[in-house]
C-alpha cells in the first residue's frame, strides 16, 4: 500500500517537536512520502491533487494537533486525484493525549495506528495484570459504607478502614437531611449495622494507611491499627469504665460542644459498638502506668488492656477506593464574624449537634450560658439544656467559601443546610425570627428549589446580601449587612448567629496523595481522571475516588458516586483485567497490536 503522511499544525505554543515523528513516519511500512507543512499552512486543493496523483497514493494520513481542520481540503484533493475519500486518515495528537513527558512516543503510536487505519483507542488498550478480588476502602463515611455494601453484597471481600473509632462519618452527626427532612440516622444506622455484620466486610476502625506498594490489580497495603485498649469481642458497652474515668475531653463527635471521657464510645449507635481509650488523654498511659487505671479495675468483663500496642497489618487488595471525606474550615481565622470571640456565634456543625435529638440538649435549641469553672475559676460558656431559647437567629451563608482569601470554590451544601436550619429553628421555637443572609441561592438538586420556596413561605427573612460583620452591642449580637433587593443597609440584633462554614479536604489528604502517587487539584481535593467522563477513576489504575474527597457534594451525590465506584471495582474484578493506565503502554506494543488488528 502506498501511503502519504502530511503534517499540519495549528498553533506554535502547544505543538510538539515533529522532527523525530517525521523520521519515524518515513520508516513505517507502506509510507512512501512524508511532508511537514509547518504551522497553519494555506493549502490549495488543486495543487495538492496534482501531488497526490503523481505519487499514486492509496491512503493519506493527516497528522497534527487538530488535523480535522485540514480534512476537507485533503479529501477534496484526494477525490480529484482519483483516490478513495474513505482512505483519508487522521492522526490527532492532542485528542489522544500526546502531551507531557512522553508526548513524542505517544504521537508516534498515534501515527502508526493511523497508517494502519486502526482507531488509536482500539489499539491502545492497556493490559492489566490479574486482579486481586479484595478491595480496600479508605474512610468509613456514607461514601465508604455505601461502596463497601455494594461490593460486599456482590460477594467480594472488602477491607474498610476508618481513622476514628466508629464508622458513620459526618452524616452520623447530622439531624435531618435536606430537602426531604428525613432523619439522617434513620438512613445511616441500618447501613452501618449492615457493614458491621457483613461477612465479606473486614472492618478496621482506629486505623490508617502506612504504606502502599504494587501495581494496579495487586496493591500491598500496610495498615496501622492503633491501640484501642478494649477487646472488641468481649466488650458489651456497659459504660462502667466511662463512668469512673476522671478525665474529661472535648467531644469530637459533638463538634466540641460537649465533653466525653478518656475511655468512651463516640456515640451510642457506634459500629463497632465497643468502648475505646483516647491514648493521648488517658492518665494511665500518659504517666506510663504510674497513675489511675481505675477503668481496668472496674470493668466487669475484664476486657480493658491499657498496655496494648499499635498493630501493623499487611493486606493485598486489587483496588483501592478513597472516601476520606472533608473537614470543616476553622471559622476563627475569619475575624469579621467573631467566631471564638462571641460565645453565641456557632458553626453549622455545632448547630447540627445542638439540634440533634440525640445531642446533649436533647434537641432543644438553646443559647450558651456562662458558667464558672469551680476548679480554675475561669468563665466558661456552655450549652445548658435549661438555658434560654434564642428569639432571633441569623444564619450567614458562604463563610469562607467563594472567597478568594479562603476557599475560592463553592462548598455546595451550605445553602441547603442553612435553609434546613431555619426550618428546624422555626419548628422548634415558636415565634422565632430567622434571618438568612445569602449571596446566591444555590438550590440545584431535585426538590431543592421547592424546599427553598417552602422555607421562604414559612416566614424566614431571606436577605439577599451577605452580612459583613457580627458585633456586640449592649449584650446583643448585631448582624450588619446590605439588603440588595430592598436597597437598604440592615442591622439585626440577634441572639444566635450560625455560620455556614465552608468545607475543606480532610486532614491527611495531602499525605495520602503522596503515599498513593496521586494528584490533587488546586483546591486540595483528589483529582479525578476526567470530570465529565470518568468522575470516579484517578490517574492511577485501580484507585478510585468517592464522595466529598473528590470535591464538595451532598449526600445523594455522594451515595450515587459511591455506587458508581463499586461498579468500576466490580468491573475490574469480574473482567479479570486490571485497569491498567495508558502511560504503561509501550510504543512497540501499540504498533504490534495495531498491526494485528489490521491484518485481522
Amino acid at each position, binding site marked *: 500500500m502506498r501511503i502519504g503522511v502530511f503534517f499540519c499544525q495549528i498553533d506554535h505554543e502547544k505543538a510538539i517537536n515533529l522532527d523525530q515523528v517525521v523520521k519515524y513516519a518515513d520508516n513505517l511500512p507502506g509510507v512512501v512520502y512524508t511532508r511537514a507543512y509547518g504551522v497553519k499552512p494555506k493549502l490549495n486543493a488543486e495543487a495538492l491533487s496534482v501531488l497526490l496523483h503523481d505519487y499514486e497514493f492509496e491512503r493519506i494520513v493527516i497528522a497534527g494537533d487538530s488535523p480535522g481542520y485540514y480534512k476537507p481540503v485533503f479529501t477534496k484533493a484526494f477525490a480529484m486525484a482519483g483516490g478513495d475519500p474513505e482512505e483519508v486518515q487522521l492522526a490527532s495528537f492532542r485528542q489522544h493525549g500526546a502531551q507531557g513527558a512522553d508526548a513524542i512516543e505517544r504521537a508516534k503510536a498515534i501515527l502508526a495506528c493511523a497508517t494502519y487505519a486502526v482507531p488509536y483507542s482500539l489499539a491502545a488498550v492497556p493490559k492489566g495484570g490479574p486482579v486481586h478480588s479484595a478491595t480496600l476502602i479508605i474512610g468509613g463515611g456514607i461514601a465508604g459504607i455505601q461502596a463497601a455494601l455494594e461490593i460486599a453484597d456482590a460477594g467480594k471481600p472488602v477491607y474498610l478502614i476508618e481513622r476514628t473509632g466508629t464508622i458513620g462519618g459526618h452524616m452520623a452527626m447530622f439531624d435531618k437531611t435536606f430537602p426531604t427532612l428525613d432523619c439522617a440516622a434513620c438512613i445511616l444506622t441500618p447501613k452501618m449495622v449492615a457493614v458491621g455484620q457483613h461477612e465479606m466486610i473486614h472492618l478496621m476502625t482506629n486505623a490508617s494507611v502506612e504504606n502502599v506498594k504494587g501495581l494496579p490489580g495487586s496493591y500491598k497495603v500496610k495498615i496501622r491499627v492503633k491501640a484501642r485498649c478494649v477487646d472488641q469481642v468481649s466488650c458489651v458497652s456497659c459504660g462502667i469504665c466511662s463512668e469512673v474515668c476522671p478525665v474529661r475531653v472535648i467531644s469530637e463527635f459533638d463538634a466540641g460542644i460537649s465533653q466525653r471521657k478518656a475511655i468512651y464510645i463516640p456515640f451510642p449507635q457506634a459500629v463497632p459498638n465497643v468502648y475505646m481509650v483516647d491514648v493521648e488523654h488517658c492518665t494511665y498511659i500518659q504517666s506510663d502506668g504510674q497513675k489511675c487505671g481505675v477503668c481496668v479495675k472496674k470493668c466487669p468483663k475484664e476486657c480493658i488492656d491499657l498496655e496494648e500496642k499499635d498493630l501493623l497489618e499487611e493486606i493485598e487488595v486489587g483496588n483501592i477506593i478513597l472516601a476520606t471525606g472533608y473537614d470543616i474550615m476553622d471559622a476563627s481565622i475569619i475575624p*469579621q464574624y467573631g467566631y471564638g470571640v462571641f460565645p453565641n456565634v456557632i458553626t453549622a456543625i455545632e448547630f447540627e449537634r445542638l439540634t440533634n435529638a440525640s445531642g446533649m440538649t436533647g434537641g432543644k435549641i438553646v443559647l450558651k450560658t456562662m458558667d464558672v469553672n469551680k476548679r480554675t475559676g475561669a468563665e466558661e460558656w456552655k450549652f445548658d439544656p435549661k438555658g434560654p431559647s434564642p428569639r432571633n437567629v441569623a444564619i450567614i451563608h458562604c463563610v469562607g467559601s467563594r*472567597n478568594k482569601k479562603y476557599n475560592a470554590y463553592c462548598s455546595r451544601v451550605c445553602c441547603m443546610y442553612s435553609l434546613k436550619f431555619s426550618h428546624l429553628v422555626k419548628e422548634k421555637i415558636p415565634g422565632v425570627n430567622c434571618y438568612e443572609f445569602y*449571596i446566591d441561592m444555590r438550590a440545584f438538586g431535585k426538590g431543592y428549589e421547592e424546599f427553598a420556596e417552602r422555607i421562604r413561605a414559612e416566614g424566614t427573612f431571606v436577605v439577599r*446580601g451577605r452580612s*459583613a460583620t457580627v458585633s456586640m452591642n449592649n449584650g446583643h449580637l448585631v448582624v*450588619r449587612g*446590605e439588603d440588595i433587593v430592598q436597597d*437598604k*443597609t440592615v442591622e439585626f440584633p440577634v441572639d444566635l448567629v450560625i455560620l455556614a462554614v465552608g468545607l475543606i479536604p480532610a486532614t491527611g489528604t495531602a499525605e495520602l496523595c503522596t503515599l498513593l502517587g496521586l494528584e490533587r487539584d488546586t483546591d486540595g481535593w483528589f483529582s479525578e481522571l476526567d470530570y465529565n467522563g470518568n468522575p470516579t477513576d484517578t490517574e492511577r489504575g485501580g484507585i478510585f475516588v468517592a464522595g466529598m474527597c473528590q470535591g464538595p457534594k451532598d449526600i445523594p451525590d455522594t451515595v450515587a458516586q459511591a455506587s458508581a465506584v463499586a461498579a468500576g471495582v466490580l468491573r475490574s474484578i469480574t473482567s479479570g483485567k486490571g485497569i491498567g493506565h495508558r502511560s504503561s503502554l509501550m510504543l512497540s506494543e501499540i504498533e504490534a497490536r495495531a498491526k494485528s488488528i489490521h491484518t485481522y
Partner: protein
Amino acid sequence: MAIRVNPRLIEDLNRFGAADVQMCYHCGDCSAVCVHADDLFRFPRKSMRQLQMGLEKRLETALEPWLCYYCGQCSDQCPREANPGETMMSLRRWLINRYDKTGIAGKFFRSLKTELWTIIVVSLLTCFAALGYHLFKGSIYVYNGPDAFLPAGLVHKFDLALGSLLGFVLIINAFNMWNLSMKPGDDVSIPWWLYLKSVLLLPFHFFTQKRYAECSTTGKSKLFMPWMVHLGLMWGYVTMLVLVMVFLPFLQSGPEIFWPAHIFGYIASIGLLIGVYYFIRSRLVRKYVQYHKSHSTDWVFVVLLALITFTGITQHLFHRTGMTVAANVTYLLHLMCVVPWLVRMPFTKWAHLMYRPLAMYFAAVRRNAYALKENKQHIFFRVVQTV
C-alpha cells in the same frame, strides 16, 4: 424612563484605575462594612453595579465617590478581590474629568505621557521667561528688591493673575458639579433655603475632614493615621498657598526673618514634609490596601509636591544664609515646579480639595430635602387620618 447605558464605560474606567470591577458578585460586604454608607448614599457596591451595567448618567450625577475617603476596609474584606475602594478612587478621577468641560483632565488621567509632556513644556516656558527677563533686567547676584533676579513684586503679580484665572476655572467646574449632581431632579425638589441652612458644613468639612476621622482604619490607628497626616498636608498646603498668594513680598524680603509671616511658613513646611514623606513611603511600601495600586497621576501628584516642598525649603535656606546665587537658581527650579503644578490644578487630583467638601455639603442638602419630603408626606397622612 429608560436609561441609556454605555457598555464601553467600564473599559474607559479601566484607564482611570478601576481594573477589577467585573470581579464583583454583589455580596454587599463592602457597603455593610463602610461607616459612611447610609440609606441615601450607599456605596461602594451600588456604584460597582452601576459601573458594571454602564449607567453613565447615574454615575456622573452621583455624589457617592466623594463621600469615600478610601480607608481601604472594603477592599480588605472583599471576598472577590474586586477592590471596591480603588473603584471609588477611579470614579473620583473620572468625575474630575466629567466636571471639567475642557477635556484636559481626561487627557491627563488617560495618559501619563500627555501629563509629563505638559509639565515639561510649562516648566521650560517658565524657565525661558525667567531667563528672558534676566537678559534685560535683573541680576543673578540680587535676591530681593527691584533689581532682583526674580523680583517679588513681579512674581506676586504673576501669582495673582494665574490664581484668579484658575479660580475662575474652578468656579466653573464647581458649577458643573452642582449642575450634574444637584439639578432639580425627578425625585425631590430642593428649596433654595436648604443651601443656606447647611452652608457652614462647607468650611467645616474643608478644614476638619471629620468624616476621614470616622473611617474604621483611623479608629484602629493610635495616631489617627492616615487622617492626621492627610489633614496636616492639607493645612500646610493651604497655608502655603495663602502665604504665596497674599504675603509673597514679606516672604521674599531681607535676609532677616520676618516672623509674623515666616512662622506660618515653617509650620506649613513641616506639615507638607511629613505628609509627602508618609504618602510616598506608603505608596512604595504598599502595606495597606489603599496604596496597593497607584495610578500614574497619584505618583505625579506626590512627586511634584515633594519637589516643590524641597526646592522651596532649599531656596529659603540659601537665601537666609546669604548664598544669593544658589538661592536664585533654586528659586527658579522651584518656580519651574510650581507653575506647572498651578496650571494643572483644576484638571488633576488636586481638585478634590474643592470637590470633596462641596460634595459633603451637597449631600447634606440633599439629605435635608429628602427629610423634608418625608415629613410633608407624614403630615399629609396625619391630616387624612384625623379627617
